[in-house]
């Protein structure tokens, strides 16, 4: 047993971090705020070249043949750079949708509501990144269907909650072409939860880093505010929260790769639950540490908080994940 991140894994994640610094600097990302297009096609292809989408695809299928453990580290690095776009969906779709693996095709994903026809329920179907998508996949217990995003009757929603996640509402979600069965849907849910959780951990760390940097530089009462315990302890709690969630995410990813060590679906649900919470809470704390400036659009603290809320709705809401874990407690 050795649960340390290996040198190879560290190098892999560092490579993605450097790629993000060069290709997705925050100033560049922020220029697309509140526009329908936030996916930079060149950048997306560069992510493809770096293996972000085909990392877990078998070598004979043109992939790198690595495990979800490596992918989780890569996605944490992507989260830490706040890279926008349907990263997890495009990763899952590699091998199923031509062009997803090398980043030439951008794939989105939406869950088909379980309750039946859209319009008879209370809540609409909301799709992210529709204008940037080449393919929209629909996930349900029956499997995965493929839809042409351009053919959908969709309404762009003004003022998206996260300025880097543009959203559309659908009045109908038509049946698509079936491209995979229920088995694939099951592992997509599990791996999707782990990778989304990895993005959340990255953002939780980003929020912590930003808060700490500000707390060191901002002087009030003649001292940097990070010297005051009230602020220092907020920051300490942020790093602890991120680290606990990180361990949960990495353990879940390893459990997917090494199924004999535990129940991967349970581990994935627990990881997603804690990572959602870490990202949301750290996002909120980051704003708080910034005081009034944290409430301004200009300071990027709100970006992590808002994105964390977006990702928390994907691959299982927190309540659904907690219920799933409760079921696991009584089936043991």
């Amino acid at each position, binding site marked *: 047993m050795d649960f340390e991140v290996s040198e190879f894994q560290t190098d892999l994640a560092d490579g993605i971090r450097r790629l993000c610094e060069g290709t997705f600097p925050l100033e560049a990302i922020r220029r697309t705020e509140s526009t329908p297009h936030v996916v930079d096609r060149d950048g997306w292809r560069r992510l493809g070249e770096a293996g972000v989408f085909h990392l877990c695809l078998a070598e004979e299928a043109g992939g790198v043949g690595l495990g979800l453990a490596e992918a989780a580290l890569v996605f944490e690095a992507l989260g830490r750079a706040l890279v926008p776009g349907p990263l997890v969906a495009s990763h899952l779709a590699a091998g199923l949708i031509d062009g997803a693996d090398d980043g030439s095709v951008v794939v989105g994903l939406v869950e088909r509501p379980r309750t039946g026809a859209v319009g008879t329920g209370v809540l609409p179907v909301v799709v992210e990144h529709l204008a940037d998508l080449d393919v929209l996949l629909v996930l349900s217990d029956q499997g995965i269907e493929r839809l042409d995003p351009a053919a959908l009757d969709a309404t762009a929603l003004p003022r998206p909650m996260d300025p880097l996640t543009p959203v559309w509402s659908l009045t109908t979600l038509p049946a698509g072409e079936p491209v995979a069965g229920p088995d694939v849907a099951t592992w997509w849910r599990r791996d999707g939860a782990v990778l989304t959780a990895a993005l959340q951990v990255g953002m939780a760390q980003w929020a912590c880093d930003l808060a700490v940097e500000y707390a060191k530089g901002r002087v009030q009462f003649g001292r940097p505010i990070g010297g005051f315990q009230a602020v220092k302890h907020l920051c*300490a709690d942020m790093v602890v929260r991120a680290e606990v969630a990180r361990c949960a995410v990495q353990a879940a990813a390893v459990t997917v790769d090494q199924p004999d060590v535990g129940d991967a679906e349970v581990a994935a649900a627990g990881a997603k639950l804690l990572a959602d919470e870490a990202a949301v809470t750290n996002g909120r704390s980051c704003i708080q540490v910034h005081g009034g400036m944290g409430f301004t659009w200009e300071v990027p603290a709100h970006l992590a908080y808002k994105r964390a809320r977006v990702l928390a709705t994907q691959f299982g809401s927190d309540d659904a994940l907690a219920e799933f874990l409760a079921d696991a407690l009584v089936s043991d």
Partner: protein
Amino acid sequence: MDLRYSDAEQAFRNDLRAWLEATLPGLPPKPSPDDWPGRRAYDTHWQRLLFDAGYAGVDWPVEGGGRGSSAIEELIFKEELERAHAPYVGVNFVGLLHAGPTVIAEGTPEQRARFLPPILRGDEVWCQGFSEPNAGSDLASMRTRAVRDGDDYVVSGQKIWTSHAEVADYCELLVRTGDEDSRHRGISWLILPMDSPGVDIRPLHTIAGSTEFAELFLDEVRVPVANRVGDENDGWRVTMVTLSFERGTAFVGDLLEAIELLATTVTLARRTGAWADPGVRRQAGHLKAELDALWALTKRNVSQAARTGIPGVGGTYFKLAYSETRHKLGEFSLSLLERAGLAAHDIEGLDGGGLLPAGVMVEDWLRGISLTIAAGTSQIQRNIVGERILGLPKEPQAAPGQKR
């Protein structure tokens, strides 16, 4: 990252499991919690069994007489003992986890030969005299005074939170040998025989009703200079060296106990019907996620310790997160007991519904309150994380010669 155990690690686990299965049924009945001589006899008998089977000092280096196991084997050892409900380390805690490792690292050959074997065999019991009524979080301000007189130190002062003092043979004692204001530069580490004249023990009663702690009053107690471990005034460093023996496994038994308590709580919720409430189920699910994550963090810390020898900052992260989770778990189980939780005693439910596990739950809830206080309060831990890990400005420190 690999969560699979090697063949050698698996073999260690299997052998241990077989030994536990063969040994545990033969143990005498557990003494009552307040029967300290009985508890000493029970705990030291268990230590002797471990010793005879080659499991004493599993985490001690071979040169100290220990088994010299890897940090991973230490993790397996603690995991298997907890799963088999083997006795807790009990009164042997200070000897095995603090005093022994200190003597191994800093003691003279004579001190090692004299003091280590009896700890491993369960013959001698140790307690800890570090904290004082006026030196808690700020331990370096301690004032128990040791004055040199020939071949002895004459020690006067007061210690607190001295676990198992009533049944201990020796105390690892921090004393001030430097100037009054020398802080961490004027402390020495002594081995105090507990039967020395001038040692007065007064039990402390905790809010959990337990009596493991005591106050120690020292009135001109003579301690041979030969009982000093390390140089005079170098006791602070000696103490810090001991801490480096910790390999991230300190809370393994505790954590597994918490996982079991959650299972007990879920069983209770199903019996009472509370499990039909989504809020109850979600709280349980959330606690499961937290406990599983803490188990993963433990494996991370132990893996790091296996490579570097120390668990690094992960131990602090663990303690901060675990103590909060344990509070939540205590509150959760107490809320499910409703009014059956008004006594720390298992009681019969309505209509022959069977015993409700109020004893363990209420006791655990109360004991859990100490977790954010003992071994460094959560506030001190957050200062450490903020300053040493995040690099935030330090709290004001008392300079030598400056009274606070």
